[in-house]
C-alpha cells in the first residue's frame, strides 16, 4: 500500500498497517524534517523495523536531489540479517511501483569472520584469528613479497578485487551478508573489502553498534559518511552500557605478562631489522617527525583499528620526540607495564581519578600524559614497520596501549579502580586494574554531533525522559507508543505473596529465608502444572539461581517440577547454554514441556526470543538490581549524581526495571502470540517501581492483578490460557480497529483533516 504523510509518499510493502506503525512514521517524519534526534519506544512485535525502513527510504525517494543516507545499527548479526530481509521485501515493492528510479544500494557490513570466503582463512575460529589470517595474506608487504616470490601465499579473492580497483562496484539492490558472499564468489572478489569500499556509496548500510560507537572502529569505517545521514540505533535500551563498554578497559595479570612477552618479541624484531634493514626504522622515524597525519594514505588492508580516543587534533599533532625511536618507545612501554604490575600487587582496593593516576605514572616512571596519549598510534606504526601480521598474538600489548591512550586523553568521567580480588570470591586472588568510563555521552557524542538525525528506538525505553539525560542530547521527538491489540494477549501479574500469604522478595535480608525459597518453589511448581509447553524463569543473578535451585533440589521441589516439565539451566558458558536452549526448544516442540532457568542481564535475557509456545509464561523472580556493592557501579552512581543530578535510587530502579521489562518482553514477539508475565516480588507492587515499566505492559496490568498470592495467580493463569486458546478474529472486530487498509487510512486523513489528499 502507499499513502501520504504530509508531502512524502510512503511505500509500505504490506496491504495493511497497524495504527501505531502509522503514528510512529508520522513522529519519525517530524524528526527528519526538523533534522533533529528522536527517541521512540514501541513494543516489539508491532513491526518497528519495517515502519522505520519504509519511512526513511520513502523519505529519501521523495528528495531525489539530496537523499539522506540511512545507517542502521543492530546489536547482532542475526538482527542484521532480519533487517536486510525486510528491506529487500520493501525494495522490491518500491521497484515494482516506481520502476528503476527507486533503485538504491543497501548492504550489511560485518567483520571478516562473517564475510570472508577464503576457505583457509575462515576456518580459524575466533574473530581476531580470522583478522590476523587475512592480514597474513593481504598485508601490503606480503603482497610485495609475493610479486617477487610466487611461493608466498596471497588471497586470490583480494588480488582479483585489487585488480579491478575502483571499478569493483555492486549493482543496486539489497545485499545481506550471505548475498555479498555469493556475489563475491561469483566474481572472485573479496566481499569484505568490497563491502568496506561500497559502504561510502550505499544508500542504506546495516551494521553493528560498534562501527559507530567504538571510536577505534568508527574512525575507520564511518569516517566518510556524510552529515546528511539518518542514524538508527535499534533495540537501543542498553545503549548507555554499550557506550560505556566501548571506553572501558580492564587489565589483569595475564594481560601484563602477555604484554611483556610481546615486548620482548618486538625487541628481537627490532634487532633483526637493525641488522638487515636499518633504513626502514629510519624511514619510520622521519615519518613520525611529520606527524601521524599521513596515516590515511596507508593501503586499505594495512589500516588497523584506529585510536581509541578521538580528539581530531591528535592526528595533526606530531608524535612526541622521546617515543619516536622504536627502542625508546619499547622501553617506555616496558616501564609502563612494570608500573602497572606494581600497582596490581596491592592488597587493598584502590580508587583513583585519572588526573592523580597520570601524575603518579609521571612521578614513578616518567611517562607524561602526551606520551600516554600517543601509545596506541605509536604501537600501530611500529607494528606496521616491523611487518607483524599475526596481530592476534599481540592483543595484550594492544590492550595496554589502548588503556594508556584513554588514560592520556580524558580527564573527566573516568576512574581507575584496582581490586585485588573479586568481591564475591575473596579467597581467590584475581587482581585487576579497571579503567571505567562513567559517562555514556562521551562515546556517543561524536555521533550526535556528526549526523543530522539520530533515532534511538526499542521496545523498552521507559522512563523515556531519562535517556536524554544519560546520553546528554536533546531529542526533538520523544514518544512512547502503545500496542493496539485485538485481544488482551498479554497478562502481566504482580505476585507479592506465596501460597501461605507471606510476602516474597529477593531483598537481601529476605532472599535466604527458607519460607521465601519454598514459596518461590511452590509458585513455579503450581505454574508448570497449569501452563503448557515452555516456561521461562529469570533470576536476579547466577549465584542466587545456584542457591535457590540447590535448596529446591534438597527439599524435593525440583523433582516434582521435573515430573511436569524438563528443566534447563543457563550457565555463563555460551556453548553449554546454546545446547540447553536447543534441547529446551525440542522439548517444547515435542510436547514434553520444559522450564528454562535463566539470569536477568545474561545472554538469554538479551538476545533470545521465546515466542509462541516456547514461552507461554515468564516468571521474574525478584527485582534484578545490579550488584550494588560493585565499586564500578558505585563510582558511576556518584558521577551520575554529581554531573547529571540523577539520584542513585532512581538510576538503580530504572536499570532494574528496564532489565525486568526486557526479560518478560521475551515472550511476546508478535500480535498473534500470547503470554503471561509474573513479577514475583512484593516490591513490584510499589508505585515507584511499577511506574517505570514500559507503557505497553502497564496498560495491561489490571488493578486486580497487582497484589496476588500464588493460588490467585494460578486461577488467573488457568482462565487466561483457556480464553487465549479460543479462535479469534485477527483483523479485530468492529469495535477495535487494529489493522488499517489503504482506504481506512485515507478516510482517517480526510476526516481528521490531517492534510489535503493528493490522490
Amino acid at each position, binding site marked *: 500500500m502507499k499513502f501520504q504523510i504530509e508531502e512524502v509518499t510512503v511505500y509500505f510493502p504490506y496491504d495493511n498497517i497497524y495504527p501505531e506503525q502509522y503514528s510512529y512514521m508520522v513522529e519519525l517524519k517530524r524528526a527528519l524534517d526538523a533534522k533533529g534526534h528522536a527517541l521512540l519506544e514501541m513494543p516489539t512485535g508491532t513491526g518497528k523495523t519495517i515502519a522505520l525502513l519504509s519511512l526513511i527510504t520513502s523519505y529519501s525517494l521523495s528528495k531525489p536531489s539530496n537523499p539522506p543516507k540511512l545507517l542502521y545499527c543492530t546489536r547482532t548479526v542475526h538482527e542484521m540479517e532480519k533487517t536486510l530481509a525486510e528491506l529487500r521485501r520493501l525494495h522490491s515493492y518500491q521497484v515494482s511501483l516506481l520502476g528503476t528510479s527507486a533503485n538504491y544500494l543497501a548492504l550489511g557490513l560485518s567483520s571478516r569472520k562473517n564475510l570472508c570466503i577464503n576457505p583457509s582463512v575462515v576456518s580459524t575460529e575466533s574473530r581476531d584469528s580470522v583478522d590476523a589470517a587475512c592480514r597474513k595474506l593481504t598485508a601490503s608487504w606480503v603482497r610485495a613479497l609475493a610479486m617477487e616470490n610466487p611461493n608466498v601465499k596471497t588471497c586470490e579473492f583480494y588480488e582479483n578485487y585489487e585488480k579491478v580497483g575502483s571499478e569493483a562496484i555492486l549493482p543496486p539492490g539489497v545485499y545481506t551478508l550471505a548475498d555479498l558472499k555469493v556475489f563475491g564468489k561469483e566474481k572472485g572478489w573479496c566481499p569484505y573489502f568490497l563491502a568496506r569500499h561500497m559502504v561510502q556509496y550505499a544508500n542504506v548500510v546495516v551494521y553493528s553498534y560498534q562501527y559507530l560507537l567504538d571510536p577505534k572502529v568508527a574512525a575507520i569505517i564511518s569516517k566518510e559518511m556524510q552529515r546528511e545521514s539518518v542514524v538508527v540505533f535499534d533495540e537501543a535500551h542498553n545503549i548507555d552500557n554499550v557506550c560505556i563498554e566501548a571506553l572501558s578497559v580492564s587489565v589483569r595479570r595475564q594481560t601484563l605478562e602477555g604484554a611483556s612477552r610481546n615486548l620482548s618479541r618486538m625487541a628481537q624484531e627490532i634487532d633483526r631489522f637493525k641488522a638487515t634493514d636499518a633504513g626502514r626504522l629510519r624511514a619510520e622515524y622521519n615519518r613520525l617527525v611529520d606527524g601521524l597525519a599521513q596515516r590515511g594514505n596507508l593501503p586499505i588492508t594495512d589500516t588497523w583499528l584506529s585510536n581509541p580516543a578521538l580528539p581530531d587534533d591528535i592526528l595533526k599533532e606530531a608524535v612526541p620526540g622521546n617515543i619516536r625511536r622504536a627502542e625508546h618507545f619499547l622501553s617506555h612501554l616496558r616501564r609502563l607495564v612494570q608500573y602497572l604490575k606494581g600497582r596490581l600487587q596491592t592488597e587493598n582496593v584502590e580508587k583513583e581519578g585519572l588526573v592523580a593516576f597520570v601524575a603518579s605514572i609521571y612521578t614513578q616512571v616518567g611517562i607524561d600524559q602526551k606520551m600516554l596519549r600517543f601509545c596506541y598510534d605509536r604501537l600501530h606504526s611500529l607494528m606496521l614497520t616491523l611487518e607483524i601480521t599475526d596481530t592476534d598474538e599481540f592483543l595484550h600489548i594492544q590492550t595496554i596501549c589502548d588503556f594508556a591512550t584513554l588514560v592520556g586523553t580524558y580527564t573527566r568521567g573516568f576512574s581507575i579502580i584496582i581490586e585485588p580480588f573479586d568481591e564475591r570470591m575473596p579467597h581467590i586472588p584475581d587482581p585487576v586494574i579497571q579503567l571505567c568510563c562513567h559517562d555514556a555521552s562521551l562515546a556517543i557524542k561524536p555521533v550526535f554531533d556528526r549526523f543530522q538525525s539520530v533515532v534511538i528506538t526499542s521496545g523498552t525505553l521507559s522512563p523515556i525522559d531519562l535517556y536524554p539525560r544519560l546520553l546528554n542530547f536533546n531529542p526533538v521527538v520523544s514518544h512512547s507508543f502503545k500496542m493496539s491489540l485485538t485481544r488482551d494477549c498479554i497478562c502481566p501479574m504482580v505476585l507479592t505473596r506465596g501460597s501461605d500469604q507471606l510476602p516474597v522478595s529477593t531483598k537481601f535480608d529476605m532472599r535466604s529465608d527458607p519460607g521465601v525459597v519454598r514459596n518461590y518453589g511452590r509458585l513455579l511448581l503450581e505454574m508448570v502444572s497449569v501452563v*503448557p509447553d515452555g516456561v521461562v524463569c529469570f533470576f536476579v543473578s547466577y549465584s542466587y539461581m545456584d542457591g535457590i535451585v540447590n535448596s529446591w533440589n534438597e527439599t524435593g521441589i525440583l523433582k516434582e517440577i521435573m515430573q511436569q516439565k524438563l528443566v534447563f539451566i543457563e550457565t555463563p558458558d555460551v556453548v553449554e547454554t546454546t545446547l540447553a536452549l536447543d534441547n529446551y526448544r525440542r522439548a517444547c516442540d*515435542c510436547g514434553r514441556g520444559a522450564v528454562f532457568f535463566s539470569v536477568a542481564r545474561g545472554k538469554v535475557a538479551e538476545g533470545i526470543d521465546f515466542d509462541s509456545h516456547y514461552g507461554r509464561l515468564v516468571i521474574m523472580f525478584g527485582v534484578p538490581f545490579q550488584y550494588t556493592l560493585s565499586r564500578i557501579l558505585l563510582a558511576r552512581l556518584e558521577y551520575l549524581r554529581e554531573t547529571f543530578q540523577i539520584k542513585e535510587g532512581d538510576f538503580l530502579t530504572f536499570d532494574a526495571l528496564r532489565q525486568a521489562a526486557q526479560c518478560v518482553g521475551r515472550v511476546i514477539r508478535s500480535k498473534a502470540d500470547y503470554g503471561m508475565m509474573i513479577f514475583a516480588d512484593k516490591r513490584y507492587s510499589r508505585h515507584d517501581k511499577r511506574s517505570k515499566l514500559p507503557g505497553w505492559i502497564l496498560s495491561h496490568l489490571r488493578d486486580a492483578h497487582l497484589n496476588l498470592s500464588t493460588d490467585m495467580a494460578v486461577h488467573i493463569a488457568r482462565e487466561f490460557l483457556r480464553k487465549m486458546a479460543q479462535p479469534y478474529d485477527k483483523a479485530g472486530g468492529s469495535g477495535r480497529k487494529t489493522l488499517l487498509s489503504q482506504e481506512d487510512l485515507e478516510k482517517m486523513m480526510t476526516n481528521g483533516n490531517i492534510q489535503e489528499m493528493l490522490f
Partner: protein
Amino acid sequence: MNNSKGKRSNGDEHEDEDDEEEDEANGGGLEAWERAYADERSWESLQEDESGLLRPIDNKATYHAQYRRRIRSTPSTARIQKGLIRYLYIVVDLSRAASEMDFKPSRMAVVAKNVEAFIREFFDQNPLSQLGLVFVKDGVAQCLTELGGSPDSHIKALMGKLECSGEASLQNALELVYGYLKQVPSYGHREVLILYSALSTCDPGDIMETIQQCKKSKIRCSVVGLSAEIFICKHLCQETGGLYSIALDESHLKELLLEHAPPPPAIAEFAIASLIKMGFPQRAAEGVVSICSCHKEPKVGGGYTCPRCKARVCELPTECCVCGLTLVSSPHLARSYHHLFPITLFSEVSPSYSSKQQQRIPKNCFGCQQSLLNPGNKPGLFVACPKCSQFFCLDCDIYIHESLHNCPGCESLRHSKPVIDAEE
C-alpha cells in the same frame, strides 16, 4: 455485600483497598470464587411470574440463539460431499491431570459424561459408522473397545474403567490407533478424536514421525483440550486436517464435542465415486440358539445373519467376521442420507417485521399448530422457511433441523403441487 463494602472502604488499611479494587475490576461479571460455582446456583434459575408463583426461567430464547449460532457456523452450503462411513477412535486421556477438579466434580467424570452423550449423538447422526475407545494412562495406551456399532457396549465399557494415574502419551495413543485404523477399508474415513487433559506428553520416540505416518494414511486427528493450548496438539491437528479446540467450561466442552458428530467433508482423494459392496442381513428368528461369530460364544436369538456366509452377528452395522462383508440395515442408509441434502437455514422473523405485514402472519406454527404468540398475546420470535414461506416456532425449528431433516412445509407443498396445477 454492599454493607460490608461500605464498612471496609472506611478502613484505611492498604490491603483492604487492594481487595476492593479487585472487586471493582471484576464487578461486571461474577466474583472469581462465584464463577466456579455458577453452574450450581440452581436457586437463581427460578423466577416469579405475575401471579406470584415460582417457575423456571424461560431460557428457550437463549438456547435457541446458541443453537442457531452453531448451525450457522457450520458451512451448510449444500452438496458438499461428506464422509458418511466413518471409523472413529475416541482417545480419552486418563492421566494424572484428569483428576483435576477445575471441572466439577472432576475432569474425568465430566469427560465421561460428555463422551457418553457424544457416542449416542454420533450413532444417531452416523448410523453407518463405527467407533472405538482408547484410554491413555500411566504413559501407555490401551484399547478399551474395538470398532463397533453399538453405543451401549461402548458406554458400558467406558463407565466401568474410570480411574486415572500416571502420565499421558500422545504418541503411544496415536501408534495404537494407527495400528487399528490402517486395516480399515479405503472408502471409510479414519478419524481420531482425542480428549486431552494433560499439558504434556511423555513419548518413547519421535512423535513427529508418528504424526507424519498418520498424515500419510489419511487419519484425521482432532483434539479437544481441557486446559490450555499445547503446541504439539495444534501441530497434529494442522497436519492431519482435524480441529483443535479448548473447552472453557462444561457446556462449552459439550458443544465442542458435538461439533464432531456430523460427518466431516470428504477428503478429496476419497471423493471419487466408488461402489461399496454391502449386505443387508435378516434378523434371525427369536429363540434360535447359534454361535455368534463376533463374540465366539453361543447366544439365543436376536442376531442377524450375513446374507453371504450365513454367519451370525450380534449387531449392525458391522463387518462380517467370516467373509468381511459390510453389513448394514436399510434404515441406517436412509438416516445417513440427510447429511448430503441439508435443509436450508430458516430465516428469523422479528416481531416488528410481522407487525408491518399483519395479513401474512398466521397465528399458529405450521409444524405443531401451537400459537406463535407469547403469553400476553405479544408476538414472539419465530422463523420462516425461505422455500415454502411457512412459519415455525423455535421448538419446531430445532426439531426439524436436528431430528426430522425434512421441512413439513416443503414436503406438503410437493404433495399438493399437482392439485394446484389442476386448479390452474
